[in-house]
């Protein structure tokens, strides 16, 4: 077993710049490492580049037409820009701000959507197993096992979001990226998702963008604070919250902006 710090990090972000328009960087010279089986929270005021950075990690940012990217991100030591996006996105899954199950698919079909979209044929018993495992992993199985063949859009918002997490982990990815996954949910659904994330980190590495400082404090192990596209400070959540090194981090944590 290799336990050097370097192998401990799943994603290595190196001098990353991302611009939507020429020379206007939404992410500026960010270097950071995301540690395995931990929850890393990305915080910062609105518009500081959190979502852009997160989307960079599975190259979802490339969906925008004139995007410019400099720098590199390594996934287990290999540059994500040298992989096919298809392989990359199977290894680095994503959950969005608003629950977005496919409305034309049943709950069952939603969970295996990643396979059917990619034309990966599975035997029925394999599919059944993947669906049950994924739904158990998001603590949704008992709630929906009787209605697997109903449309996913009939579920409550919180259930839909857990379905979306199930869909993202059905591939068994290394990393799961979550962009404010609870901001559209009520407090009870939010706390269920938070509990779920605590469970999921045993198997996966989670990166969580959040506006909610107390959420970051409650569930994250590491934290990153961004401001105007730059990564101001990062480190273990406990240290960052109690003993911020940068005055801007401190200002944010004490509610001076954002």
């Amino acid at each position, binding site marked *: 077993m290799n336990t050097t710090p370097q192998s401990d990090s799943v994603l290595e972000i190196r001098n990353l710049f991302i611009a939507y328009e020429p020379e206007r960087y939404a992410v500026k010279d960010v270097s950071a490492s995301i540690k395995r089986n931990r929850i890393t929270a990305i915080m910062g005021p609105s518009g500081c580049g959190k979502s852009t950075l997160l989307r960079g990690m599975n190259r979802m940012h490339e969906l925008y037409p004139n995007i410019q990217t400099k720098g590199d991100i390594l996934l287990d030591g290999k540059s994500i820009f040298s992989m096919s*996006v298809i392989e990359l*996105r199977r290894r680095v899954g994503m959950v969005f701000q608003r629950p977005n199950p496919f409305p034309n698919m049943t709950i069952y079909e939603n969970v295996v959507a990643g396979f059917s979209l*990619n034309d990966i044929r599975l035997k029925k018993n394999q599919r059944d197993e993947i669906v049950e495992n994924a739904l158990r992993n998001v603590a949704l199985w008992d709630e929906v096992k009787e209605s697997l063949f109903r449309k996913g859009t009939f579920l409550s918002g919180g259930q839909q979001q857990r379905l979306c997490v199930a869909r993202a982990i059905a591939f068994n990815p290394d990393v799961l990226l979550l962009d404010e996954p609870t901001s559209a949910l009520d407090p009870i659904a939010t706390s269920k998702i938070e509990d779920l994330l605590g469970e999921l980190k045993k198997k996966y590495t989670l990166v969580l963008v959040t506006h909610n400082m107390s959420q970051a404090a409650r569930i994250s192990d590491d934290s990153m604070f961004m401001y105007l596209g730059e990564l101001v400070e990062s480190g273990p959540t406990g240290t960052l919250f109690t003993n911020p090194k940068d005055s801007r981090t401190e200002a944010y944590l004490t509610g001076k902006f954002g």
Partner: protein
Amino acid sequence: MSGDRITKALLFISSLTILLLSAGIVISLFGGSIPAFREFGLRFITSSAWNPTAGSEEYGAMAFIAGTVITSILALIICIPMAFTTSLFIAEYYRDTRISGILRSLVDLLAGIPSIVYGFWGFYALRPLLVSTGLSDQGFGVFTASLVLAIMIVPYATSLSAEIISMVPAELKEAAYSLGATRREVIFSVVIPSARSGIIASFILALGRALGETMAVTMLIGNANVIPKGLFAPGNTMASVIANQFGEASGLKMSALIAVGLLLFLITALVNYLGKLIIKRFA
């Protein structure tokens, strides 16, 4: 206070006017067609005889119903592949790009060209082309009319479908991309299924347009009052027989033409209603 009342009264009066107008149209269509239906009964719909000779007058709408339905459906069949692919191009593949913007304005431009101009183009450009292929003697007939009709409804179907396709939420597409789907897979597994009923509705509405189209069809269909015997044979449509013959018509013949108009109105209303129903379910 009273300003509010005046506005309310004005709005009420204008809506009432519309209501009265449409009721008036329907009533006069019904009223005008009574003599024809009294004379021929249901035979007016099933018969394809059209004989204005005094003494042995006989009128049936079947030839025109057939002409209208055949040309419109054929036009729709030709229109679907063009409009569907163009709307995908505009609203999905190249959305928010300059080329898509240019294409969108071109489509709107085409939609604004008057029917008679399309007729002219069909008459002087398309017809000789068809004659030169040897498929048709004079170039008149069902196929020529359908082709021009198709070109006329393509812009309409395209802009409606493009509107529907661009309404597919970005979140769904992003979800599919984040699962490793390719562009093609996103389009075929997410965009098209989500927009399906809306796309179908836009084609039904385009069909509604084709059914009532008059000028261009009259110039190209050959105006023979018979059920068309083939793709390149002449025929006539409901709208075009009215346009051609109402000027010299009176008595029973006038009533027969009005009855054809009533039938056309009913068919078109039904088709449009179906289209709107599907759109409503989609939205």
